């Protein structure tokens, strides 16, 4: 398992802390075009993900890529997470992973 460049778990609010670095997040798709997807982060922010989404796309999708700025990501990896997902659990995970338990993740 390649642990050389771990992606930080982020939600909308935490994205700005990792601009220019590898991040991962789950969004709820609101709009999907060729080349980009608009979605709601687990803390309710609007994010833009650039790249080629899989077809078909489920409601929830995880993206791993590089944070361009505080509300957009250039995705390298897309994974369908299905149509039901517990957003609040994921959000809490993001907070812990960037807060006191950061040392466990990065």
């Amino acid at each position: 398992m390649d642990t050389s460049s771990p992606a930080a778990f982020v939600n909308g609010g935490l994205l700005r802390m990792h601009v220019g670095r590898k991040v991962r997040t789950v969004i709820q798709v609101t709009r999907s075009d060729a080349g980009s997807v608009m979605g709601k982060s687990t803390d309710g922010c609007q994010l833009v993900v650039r790249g080629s989404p899989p077809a078909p796309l489920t409601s929830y999708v995880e993206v791993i890529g590089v944070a361009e700025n505080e509300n957009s990501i250039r995705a390298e990896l897309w994974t369908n997470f299905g149509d039901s997902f517990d957003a609040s659990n994921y959000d809490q995970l993001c907070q812990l992973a960037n807060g006191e338990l950061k040392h466990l993740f990065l």
Partner: protein
Amino acid sequence: MPVNLTRNAIAMMNSGDVNSKPLVQVVDIKLIGNSQERYRFLLSDSESTQHAMLATQLNEQVRTGRVKKGSIIQLIDYICSTVQNRRIIVVLNMETIIPEYEIIGNPKLLMGSEPEANKSMPNNNLFEPSTRSTNNRYSAPAPANKAQSFQPTIQPAYQPPPNYKIQGPIMKNEAPARIIPIAALNPYQGRWAIKARVTAKGDLRRYNNARGDGKVFSFDLLDSDGGEIRVTCFNAVVDRFYNVIEVGKVYLISKGSLKPAQKNFNHLKNEWEIFLESNSTVELCPDEDGSIPRQQFSFRPITEIESAENNSILDVIGIVISVNPSVPILRKNGMETQRRILNLKDVSGKSVELTLWGDFCNKEGQKLQEMVDSGLFPVLAVKAGKVNDFNGKSIGTISSTQLFIDPDCPEAQGLRAWFESGGRNTASISISKEIMPGGSKNEIRKTLTQIKDEGLGRSDKPDWVTAKATVVFIKTDNFCYTACPLMIGDRQCNKKVTQSGNKRWLCDRCNQEFEECDYRYLLQVQIQDHTGLTWVTAFQEAGEEILGCSAKEMYLLKYELQDDTRFGEIIRSRLFHQYLFRLKIKEELYGDEQRVKITVVKVDKVNYSAESRYLLDMVTKNLRNRKQF
């Protein structure tokens, strides 16, 4: 031939001489007494006359004509006392010398005018003479004996009239004892009498022990102060009283011995028990005494029974909501008996299962069945039922239990009123089903090593916990058992059945045979979590969840079709699944050693969303706690 009556016999008797054994003549005989047959003689010594009462044991002589008007008799045993300023003689023993004779002399009444029949007649309820003709002396009872007032002082000794010659070997104080409350009875009481109603009469039982054959019966008494006591008779005493005692009637009882009550059989609130002997007296009191209640209950609400001790005896009252048919049961001693199960509901919102045994099934049980079948919901009062904790808490009848259908007591009326005004429709929770404490809100989560480390299951109540673990091994030998499919009430019997003959099964509990038995899981499973592993037992429902198919299917696969390959595949496919196990942990005695037994009560698939929330909670709490250092 001329007869010489004893000169001045009357005067001598009246002055207290009881030893002369005079020869007198019976001038008149009158039958008096309201409730009892009493004869009053007019005795003459040829000059004076005197009234004398005939003791009832001699009534036969008058009835058969052995003594009549004009008979010359010898008084062998008699007493003389004063009642209301009149001298009364009571003849205890006499001999007719000449049955018929003309009146001798010109006897005149010594005392004044003829007394009225009723006034001076002593009320003889207390007067039952013993059949021995010894020098017992009788006192005409003072009217005060009729009152039930209890004076808590020691009984005054009976004082004979001063000019009374005392002769004879023993002077017995034969004054009738005062009536005292049952609650005051004790072995050091001295003479006592109690007046009480029979609330229960036991069966006549014969027994055989080292001393030979015997028989015994008991009955329970209740007095006007609410005191209760059991009375027991053995052997010859049984013959005297068994047919005399009737439930519901009031008796005056005296001269029994007091001994400690046998708490195993006697559930009355009294530390003593009365044992009647050959000199005991039991008198029926024919007057209806309204001051003595018919029965005494201390009902417990069904909700209290939930916390009652196993094998304790109590009274309960409730509305009968269901009655099951009677089934014959083979008991351990080889005897067959009947059993019926019914359910009672009360205002506490709980219901309890009541098991009727033996005769109760045919008598009260049958009546209740008919009533419930015709749409009625009768009130049933149970006196002295036994608590059983096999499955939740239930009540069973014992030999001293009494059942009362629609009793006329305030509790019954209260129940009926509650039932009719809405109680009928309120759902009730049965206390007779095994309760699993802690719903999903207050589940206690433990890891598998915590079960051992914290010594769970060692207290007198089982511990209920939830553990998240993975199935790592399933024992395939004896994974199921042959079960009884018959219904008992709303539950399946499920007792292990044995093979009887070829292709037939026999259930001991239901005492029936049938062709098809049920197959139910009895799985031994090893489960593991991040802390350790342990063996657990899973029954039917848990087994079906773990294996994903019924015990019957697996049984047929392994033993009928003998398809070990498919069987093995199924087992393997069910390993390494993670579940949330609801566990019941209890230490039990296996032979000589105490072993902690873990039973799987419920198996739930892990809900990832909920489980994640749980874990996140734990992490957050953990962080908060660490910060406090």
